[in-house]
């Protein structure tokens, strides 16, 4: 039983060792008996029997070894197949991981959108109110110039210099307690307190500039504007200039 569990290689090597020993003994025994011319008491027969037995065993083990070799080839093929299947499974696993990631992202985004929808529903505003505010914003021509606006039209979507001076702040500048240092030269000029020498000179000033084309801080020239201009501005909604060069924000 113990012999059956031994590896075939070990058994073969063991049998070969036995064969070597038995063969040598037999040859030495035959040589000795020939020299001494003495008959051996059946010892050579025993050795021969053992030799034959070991040889038979060797033959059987060689057959077993051949069979095991064939099985080994089959096992190599199966191992290659197992490797291929492992590779396929890993590839499939990788694809499933990617799909899971994509789906998780999509589900997360969908949930975020649902939250936004719920949030919007809770703070919903009626469409009439929205339209009302839109109308109010657009009615002042703050988002688009009036349809009849042409270059030269003094209307602007912001308070013009003239309108500011005619307002409360402009009147406050005329008070005697306000010093020159607290105001820009242009404002002091508008208040009529600075001489023309100190009038800020801008490179774009020219004598040919007509009313409505001038940039701000031209206090003298504004006096040439028709008196009804302010009223026109007050009546009209603020018009947003479509020409970027007419913006006065830089000169302020």
């Amino acid at each position, binding site marked *: 039983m113990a012999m059956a569990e031994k*590896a075939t290689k070990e058994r073969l090597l063991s049998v070969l060792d036995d064969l*070597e020993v038995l063969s*040598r003994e037999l040859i030495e025994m035959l040589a000795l008996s020939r020299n001494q011319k003495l008959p051996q008491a059946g010892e050579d027969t025993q050795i021969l029997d053992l030799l034959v037995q070991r040889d038979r065993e060797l033959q059987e083990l060689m057959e*077993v070894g051949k069979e095991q070799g064939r*099985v080994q*080839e089959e096992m190599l093929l*199966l191992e290659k197949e*197992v490797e291929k*299947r492992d590779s396929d499974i890993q590839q*499939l696993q990788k694809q499933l991981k990617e799909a899971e990631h994509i789906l998780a992202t999509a589900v997360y985004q969908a949930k975020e959108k649902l939250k936004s929808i719920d949030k919007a529903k809770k703070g919903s505003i009626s469409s009439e109110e929205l339209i009302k505010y839109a109308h109010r914003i657009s009615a002042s021509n703050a988002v688009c110039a009036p349809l009849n606006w042409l270059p030269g039209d003094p209307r602007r979507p912001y308070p013009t210099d003239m309108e500011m001076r005619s307002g409360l702040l402009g009147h406050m500048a005329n008070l005697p307690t306000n010093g020159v240092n607290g105001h820009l030269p242009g404002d002091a000029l508008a208040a009529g307190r600075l001489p023309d020498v100190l009038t800020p000179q801008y490179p774009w000033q020219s004598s040919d500039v007509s009313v409505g084309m001038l940039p701000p801080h031209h206090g003298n020239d504004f006096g040439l504007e028709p008196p009804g201009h302010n009223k026109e501005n007050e009546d009209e909604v603020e018009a947003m200039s479509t020409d970027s060069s007419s913006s006065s924000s830089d000169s302020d």
Partner: protein
Amino acid sequence: KDSQDIHQELTKLRTKIQEAREHVVSGMPGIDCSPGEQQQHLASLRDQVRTKNQLLQKYKSLCMFEVPKAS
């Protein structure tokens, strides 16, 4: 002369047996284990191949978008 012949024959025998040993060690694959162990290993490999084939077949034929029935 006889002893020389015997010695030569013994040397030849030793050489042959040594060649047989080398053939057993390196020329016969698969004999590192007993036949019983080898059969067990073979069965295990066949089982692995069968299981992995089934797994792959299952996942390739699985419809990922089946809607589970409402309980």
